């Protein structure tokens, strides 16, 4: 009899929970410590940099999507730790309106970067950085330096140096949950099918 009472109480609690929170399959709200409040965010500087195919990439092409903008280099050990995480995130979240965009700071450009990307099986778009771009982003004195950019093109979080995978994932999840549906979610992204191009 007491088991029945307990079961009834649980069912009531679940129904009440559904009523208050909704019973959809959407993920629970994530709040990443590193993500700034909207009022504290500033526009991410736009840039025009070339990708491996020689195509000019503007950050503004990505408006409406959450972007993880990673300044890195082939000679940077901590960058190498993060890159597999970003590759995995690109694969899992691309259809949700998320993109990784790597900005390589290698002086030798594609000569060093192309074989590295192939070796690391990088599946996201990478461009070669330049001084005006790094200056616009505060100098980028150390690598990795990673910016999380929201759907409105504002900088929502900055990670200088190696950060935790969960920090990135929570930050991206929080930004994906913000606002309306992403402009390009499920459709064509600015990067297209990068892996297929390589």
């Amino acid at each position, binding site marked *: 009899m007491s088991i029945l009472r307990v079961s009834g109480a649980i069912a009531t609690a679940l129904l009440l929970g559904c009523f208050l929170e909704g019973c959809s399959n959407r993920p629970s709200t994530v709040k990443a410590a590193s993500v700034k409040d909207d009022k504290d965010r500033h526009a991410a500087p736009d840039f025009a940099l070339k990708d491996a195919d020689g195509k000019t990439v503007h950050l503004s092409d990505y408006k409406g999507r959450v972007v993880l903008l990673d300044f890195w280099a*082939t000679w940077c050990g901590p960058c190498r730790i993060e890159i597999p995480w970003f590759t995995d995130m690109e694969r899992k979240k691309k259809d949700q309106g998320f993109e990784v965009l790597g900005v390589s700071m290698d002086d030798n450009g594609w000569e060093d970067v192309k074989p590295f990307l192939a070796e690391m099986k990088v599946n996201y778009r990478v461009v070669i950085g330049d001084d005006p771009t790094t200056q*616009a982003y*505060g100098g980028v*004195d150390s690598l990795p330096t990673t910016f999380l950019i929201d759907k409105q093109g504002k900088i929502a979080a900055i990670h*200088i140096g190696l950060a935790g995978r969960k920090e990135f994932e929570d930050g991206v999840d929080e930004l994906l949950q913000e606002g309306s549906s992403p402009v390009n979610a499920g459709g064509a992204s600015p990067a297209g099918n990068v892996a297929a191009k390589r």
Partner: protein
Amino acid sequence: MLAVLLLPAMWPQSAERLTVGQPQKVAGKRTDVVHTKIPVSILDGYHVNSNTPSDEYLIPLKVTWTSLGALEGGQVSYPKAEKITVGDQSLSVFTGKFDLAVDFKVSAKAPAGPGVATGKLGFQACNDKMCFPPKSIEINVPYQVQ
């Protein structure tokens, strides 16, 4: 625009992570083999790749001579590298203070008198969280041909 102005203040201040001391002056007669030491000091908590990094993409510590003057050779002996682990990477690095030993030979046709051999020490520094762009520091080795 405000973001651009505010961003620099959010960065850690850059500091010299590697310093090079003054190499000992060398002196010798024509055809003599002479030696010097280049003192190097790396800031606590940082490392630089050794002269033989563990990965082809890593940038080695390396001396490159730009002008030897009346000297020849300039063969550098690097210290024994340390092995450290960052993440799942095993790295071959230098830390702390060490000397680079250099051998020169005084040219057979060297004129007597003073001079300076010049070169550059290239390196790339990191700590366990971040890396800094490759740099080079000028090296000046004073000599006296007797």
